């Protein structure tokens, strides 16, 4: 059956907020998907001209080249403090940070918790892939028990290396937080949910509702030693049970456990 002669129209193309440049991310790395979701949210809220992004140290250190808004590169872990400085100086701008698990939950734990508890009107996009990617795959605060990494070569032993941190659950306990949701990008269904969550977080910021954070379960095929498709499967089978998806706090809505 041939295609009809009716004119076809574009139903999917690059968002305006995403720079038209190749990225340095590994093949199949889900950073690219999340970057796109953020860019789509910015486009749909028509706030590119007012947005200022803060990028971390990690694989996404060069995110300043990938978004078409003003960008600031922050020291490792300190993006929430940098974002606080930006937002306090320019309360009408839209400010977001983009951080990995080491950045947000290891070295930056203090900055993360305090920006959240102060209720800073910023949006944090937290990429949880259970590993320190840029430096070659070491243990992260979110590495699962038993997971093999460069610094847990025999598998993470909770007796010596402690337990992972569930960031969404932890931050949901703080009164200053307006909205926390954990999503994943391993399937079309989950990507759609992630897009809605990210857009809602930005919307809450434009409505000055307070601190919003979206934790995005992501893959690191290179350091997990899996091909990109198998990496998505690993995420579904291992990460989702430990880090359940869902809304952990939404001050507009009572959230039932």
């Amino acid at each position, binding site marked *: 059956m041939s295609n009809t002669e009716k004119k076809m129209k*574009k139903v*999917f*193309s690059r968002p305006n907020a*995403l720079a038209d440049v190749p990225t340095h991310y590994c093949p*199949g790395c889900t950073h690219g*998907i999340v970057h796109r979701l953020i860019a789509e949210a910015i486009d749909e809220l028509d706030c590119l001209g007012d947005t200022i992004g803060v990028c971390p140290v990690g694989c996404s250190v060069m995110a300043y080249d990938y978004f078409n808004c003003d960008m600031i590169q922050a020291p490792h872990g300190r993006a929430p403090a940098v974002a606080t400085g930006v937002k306090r100086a320019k309360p009408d701008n839209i400010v977001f940070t983009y951080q990995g698990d080491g950045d947000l939950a290891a070295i930056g734990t203090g900055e993360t918790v305090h920006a959240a508890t102060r209720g800073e009107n910023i949006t944090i996009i937290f990429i949880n892939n259970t590993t320190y990617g840029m430096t070659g795959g070491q243990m992260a605060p979110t590495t699962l028990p038993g997971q093999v990494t460069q610094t847990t070569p025999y598998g993470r032993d909770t007796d010596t290396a402690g337990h992972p941190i569930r960031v969404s659950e932890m931050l949901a306990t703080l009164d200053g937080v307006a909205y926390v949701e954990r999503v994943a990008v391993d399937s079309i269904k989950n990507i759609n949910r992630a897009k809605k969550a990210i857009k809602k977080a930005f919307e809450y910021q434009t409505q000055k509702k307070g601190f919003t954070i979206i934790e995005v379960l992501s893959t690191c095929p290179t350091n997990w030693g899996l091909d*990109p498709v198998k990496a*998505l499967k690993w995420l579904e089978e291992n990460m989702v049970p430990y880090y359940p998806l869902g809304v952990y706090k939404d001050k507009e809505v009572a959230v039932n456990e």
Partner: protein
Amino acid sequence: MGRITVDEQRCKGCGLCINVCPKKILKLSEDKLNDKGYSFMVCFDMDECIGCARCAMMCPDIAIEVER
């Protein structure tokens, strides 16, 4: 009813799109590599494309445009 355009130079041959295509009409190029040395995605039966855009939604490199 649907058509995709692939930026062969942007594609990193990760295979995520191939995995989600409901019509199973995508594959990696067998005898060609792009300038970066990657095999890239090729649609081998465009007539079957329904323009669902799942391939594009899965692509981390925004290498796919979709029309319907």
